[in-house]
């Protein structure tokens, strides 16, 4: 069975379910759909983006209360109040996101707990929202003149919305913007160096997750036709997160599986446990908690990866699309001065990592920066590429000072780099990793990505990435996970990723380390060709054969200072250099 058929079968089951199942099971499926929509947002936010939120229930509440209030008090059409609820949620989410998404690491989830509680108490204490008793008499939704009065009618609305949201999310993740979002978990520094605005990506997924929750809230109030604060408390927010984690937060279908498992389990336990304990109460949380601990200890990826092993749903693309060429960011001409570093000093407290360093790189030139370990070469690289600004001095790139600009803005001007300690997204394929490098060469936004209206551009980006993968000799590994490559191949992948941005200046931090002899020769050959095309290349390298055979000019550093500069042969004879490397002239 092909993945497409599995999906078709699933859709058929969903469509037929209300025709054969009893009222009880239809209601259960309705609740699964409502929860899955919220959990889907969390898959995007937590599973993919690495931002944990315990406060999604509050967004459900915003959508629910806005619609309930406007529809009862002003008798507006539920379709209008849906839009109003989404606007209100978006405004609140942007405000909260602006404040809490800057929170680093574990501060963010703590922040979501805080506003989760805060909004819950607000719903319960505002007079016009009915306080803790709530609001009743909420109008029904009518669709094309047909009133969705009972659960069976509503079922289709809920599941069409949910499946639509799944489709949009899946589309988004399989796009240029999606790669940027997937880089948020563990790859922020790299993504910024490739020109990705990671702060924007965070806000975007936060907003999408909040809107999914808000729509779920709207569906909920018009299904129940009654609202009170209980379903929007922190514990429900925690339950949504459990759904995503138990189901498998890395996949959109994990949200549906998790919502199904937790909702059914909850229903079952709420019947069973009070009988067992002889009292009423939310005893199911005990089981949920234990389940959660066991899942995180034994199967951190959740249930979906286990389930999908038994189903032929792995549909990774194995074909490189044929597409138009991308526009070139840089065109090279003559031997124009590309990079000029003037008197750059970088201090870390009392340590002078770079002292009055100057160097320049021209178009069509390979400049090598060498020196013993700890000489300050990588610090110099970070000063140039904007990872860490210099204490004093100036850096000119294509005639403009770039001191004070962040890595992303510098990347936008046509500089690209590799990292000494390889930084890639190990779970993504080689071609996708390289495509992140081409991020700045695409322009289509989130909406186009969600609707897959950007396929022409996306194909061009992937075709370009594939060209660069072939260029560095990794063609056979195109669709392998990047983490499965050997270290030397991962370095080549970084070179390909940098090339995918079509840079004017390429910064390579020890590109030959870990490469085998033939691979080194191939890399040197590639760099020579790039130079002949007019690219400027600055590289740090310890392998002297590699450097001396390739570089046009060499700068030697020791203890943060420049001790020599010149042609490779000159530098090799320079007494200061011999002193630094060999401890004296033999």
């Amino acid at each position: 069975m092909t993945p497409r058929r599995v999906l078709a079968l699933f859709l058929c089951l969903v469509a037929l379910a209300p025709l054969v199942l009893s009222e009880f099971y239809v209601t259960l499926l309705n609740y699964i759909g409502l929860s899955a929509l919220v959990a889907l947002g969390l898959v995007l936010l937590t599973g993919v983006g690495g931002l944990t939120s315990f406060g999604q229930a509050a967004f459900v509440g915003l959508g629910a209360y806005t619609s309930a209030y406007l529809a009862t008090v002003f008798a507006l059409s539920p379709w209008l109040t849906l839009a109003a609820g989404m606007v209100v949620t978006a405004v609140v989410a942007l405000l909260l996101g602006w404040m809490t998404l800057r929170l680093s690491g574990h501060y963010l989830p703590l922040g979501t707990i805080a506003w989760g509680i805060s909004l819950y108490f607000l719903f319960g204490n505002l007079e016009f929202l009915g306080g803790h008793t709530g609001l009743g008499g909420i109008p029904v939704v009518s669709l094309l003149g047909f009133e969705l009065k009972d659960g069976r009618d509503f079922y289709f609305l809920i599941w069409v919305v949910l499946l639509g949201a799944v489709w949009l999310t899946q589309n988004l993740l399989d796009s240029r913007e999606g790669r940027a979002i997937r880089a948020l978990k563990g790859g922020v520094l790299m993504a910024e160096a490739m020109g990705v605005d990671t702060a924007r990506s965070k806000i975007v997924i936060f907003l999408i997750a909040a809107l999914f929750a808000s729509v779920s809230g709207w569906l909920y109030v018009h299904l129940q036709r009654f609202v009170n604060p209980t379903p929007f408390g922190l514990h429900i927010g925690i339950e949504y997160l459990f759904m995503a984690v138990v189901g498998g937060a890395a996949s959109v279908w994990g949200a549906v599986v998790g919502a199904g498992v937790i909702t059914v389990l909850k229903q079952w336990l709420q019947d069973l446990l009070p009988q067992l304990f002889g009292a009423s109460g939310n005893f199911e949380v005990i089981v949920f908690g234990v389940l959660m601990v066991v899942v995180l200890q034994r199967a951190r990826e959740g249930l979906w990866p286990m389930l999908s092993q038994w189903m032929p749903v792995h549909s990774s693309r194995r074909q490189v699309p044929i597409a138009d060429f991308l526009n070139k960011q840089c065109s090279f001409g003559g031997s124009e001065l590309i990079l000029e570093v003037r008197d750059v000093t970088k201090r870390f407290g009392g340590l002078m990592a770079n002292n009055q360093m100057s160097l320049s790189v021209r178009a069509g030139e390979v400049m090598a920066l060498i020196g013993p370990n700890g000489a300050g070469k990588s610090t110099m690289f970070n000063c140039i590429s904007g990872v860490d600004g210099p204490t004093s001095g100036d850096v000119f790139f294509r005639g403009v000072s770039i001191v004070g600009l962040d890595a992303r803005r510098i990347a936008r001007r046509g500089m690209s780099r590799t990292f000494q300690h390889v930084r890639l997204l190990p779970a993504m394929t080689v071609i996708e990793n390289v495509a992140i490098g081409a991020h700045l060469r695409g322009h289509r936004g989130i909406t186009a990505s969600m609707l897959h209206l950007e396929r022409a551009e996306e194909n061009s980006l992937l075709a370009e990435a594939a060209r660069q993968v072939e260029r560095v000799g990794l063609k056979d590994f195109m669709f392998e996970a990047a983490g499965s490559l050997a270290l030397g191949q991962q370095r080549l992948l970084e070179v390909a990723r940098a090339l995918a941005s079509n840079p004017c200046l390429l910064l390579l931090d020890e590109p030959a380390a870990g490469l085998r002899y033939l691979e080194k020769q191939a890399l040197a050959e590639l760099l020579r060709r790039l130079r002949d095309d007019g690219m400027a290349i600055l590289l740090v390298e310890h392998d002297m054969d590699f450097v001396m055979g390739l570089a046009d000019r060499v700068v030697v550093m020791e203890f943060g200072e420049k001790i020599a500069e010149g042609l490779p042969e000159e530098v090799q004879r320079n007494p200061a250099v011999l002193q630094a490397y060999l401890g004296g002239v033999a």
Partner: protein
Amino acid sequence: MDLQIALLLGQDGITNGAIYALLSLALVLVFAVTRVIFIPQGEFVAFGALTLASFQAGKTPGTLWLLLGAGFVVAIVDLVVAWRRRKWRRVPAILGWNLVYPALMAGLILSIEPSKWPLLAQISLALALVVPLGPMMYRLAFQPLAEAPVLVLLIVSVAVHLVLVGLGLVFFGAEGSRAASFSDVSLDIGEFSITGQTLAVVLTSGVLIVVLYQFFGRSLYGKALRATAINRTGARLMGISTVMAGKLSFLLAAGIGALSGILIAPITTVYYDTGFLIGLKGFVGAIIGGLASYPVAAVGAVAVGLLESYSSFYASAFKEVIVFTLIIPMLLWRSLTTRHVEEES
């Protein structure tokens, strides 16, 4: 608001603040040593208070069953590990701490009537029941995940919190309880009187903070915990067991939590789920201290207590809204002033 009310509110705020300060210290301690954000702290508060109240009401506290159950599970898990690794020498200690000790406690509590005992003995007995749950919790939930990212530990922490709230409902029921007051003494200064309970709370907190300070500064185990907090791998290479450090920090946190619960038991009615909000307010203090500095956390916690007290006067319905909304600017300030290093997942 006149001066009398202002002073009364201030007294309330400082009493609560002292409790929050104790809790925030425990939270900082646990986070520094194990990287666990200790959400279940509040449940220890509730368990401590409810256990004491049960003794006084002449009932068998539910925490006894919890201790017996948790001990049993830990014993099984540890015995399986010992059997797999052929470490038979560990068996007596495993059986002793997890089966014999809870059984002895059960024998003691069921054979005597704690309600007739003096207050201090009741408190000791309550602590002896609740505190061992800390290390047991670490063993079951967190030790297998000791190297996991902070966010995974946080989710586990929330899960454990839910389990304990549910168990609290099972063992203590939905009704709240209140313990008898420690003393009826009150100190009159002009028109204003300070209750004995306030004094007991503030003094105990003060003494405990000094004791903890001495423990971390002077004792070998305190230094071992600090070393683990600064560099886990380094501490390990120096022969400090990270498992020991984890269990010890959970023991201390459980002790602080249970004691806080005992201190507030006479002031307020405690329900099985009361602890959570109290614990979270301790959190706000801990966050103000950046989950790193003990004195700043304590000062922050007292500030939270005062803020809560005064806002309950001006806008009592919105008390929780105000307190928890204020965390956000605090968090914002904290995350802007600390340099974040990307955690490789």
